[in-house]
């Protein structure tokens, strides 16, 4: 059970290997890696900056993780989320779920991503050719998270 919020870049492959190592009970692991896009709604994004509130953001994500553990039959979960400046193509978020059977692992990862995309305490700013803009969740993100209520 781990939640990490960090400014340092991470390698999703390394995280997945470490998360998978030594597991004998779990029949499956699902992982998701979210990347910074080079364009949003066909507008170029030169850079992305995520603001976080250290000491507030981690406990909020840990509460989402606890809820995922209560809802799904998983052995283990890992959430790593970056903040600060992030270049296009770099990984922003990594989620992994280990479970005895695949369905629970898929569902837990899906649930966590929907929650992270709408409720995680981050504030996102994109800089492009038209200047800077602060981003809020898309309507489709809310539709996604409402599937779980």
């Amino acid at each position, binding site marked *: 059970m781990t939640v990490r919020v960090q400014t340092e870049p991470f390698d999703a492959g390394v995280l997945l290997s470490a998360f998978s190592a030594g597991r004998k009970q779990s029949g499956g692991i699902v992982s998701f890696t*979210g990347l910074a896009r080079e364009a949003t709604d066909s507008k170029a994004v030169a850079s992305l900056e995520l603001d976080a*509130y250290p000491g*507030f953001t981690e406990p909020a994500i840990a509460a989402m993780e606890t809820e995922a553990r209560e809802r799904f039959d998983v052995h283990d979960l890992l959430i790593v989320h970056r903040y600060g400046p992030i270049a296009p193509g770099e990984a922003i978020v990594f989620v992994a779920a280990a479970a005895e059977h695949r369905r629970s692992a898929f569902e837990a990862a899906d649930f966590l991503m929907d929650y992270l*995309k709408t*409720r*995680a305490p981050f*504030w996102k700013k994109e800089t492009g050719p038209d200047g800077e803009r*602060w981003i809020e*969740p898309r309507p489709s993100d809310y539709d996604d998270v409402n599937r779980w209520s």
Partner: protein
Amino acid sequence: MAKVLMLGRLRDVAGWRERTLDHPPATLSALRALLTEEDPALGEALNGKGVQAAVNKAVSREDTAIGPNDEIAFLPPMSGG
């Protein structure tokens, strides 16, 4: 010294992310009023839809008392990750 933090777009509106107050007002609503008096544009942003305030990293109501060593953060609607 109380610490006041502006997160997300509030930081850009205020032109600062963090400042300290030697003698903070007694409550969160009084702090909001003080910040609004100093900077009406920031006041408008602070009173915007969905802006929450946290005292010592817990989302708090407007009548929450503020002590001299507290940390107060203003949080715009969250973007998600």
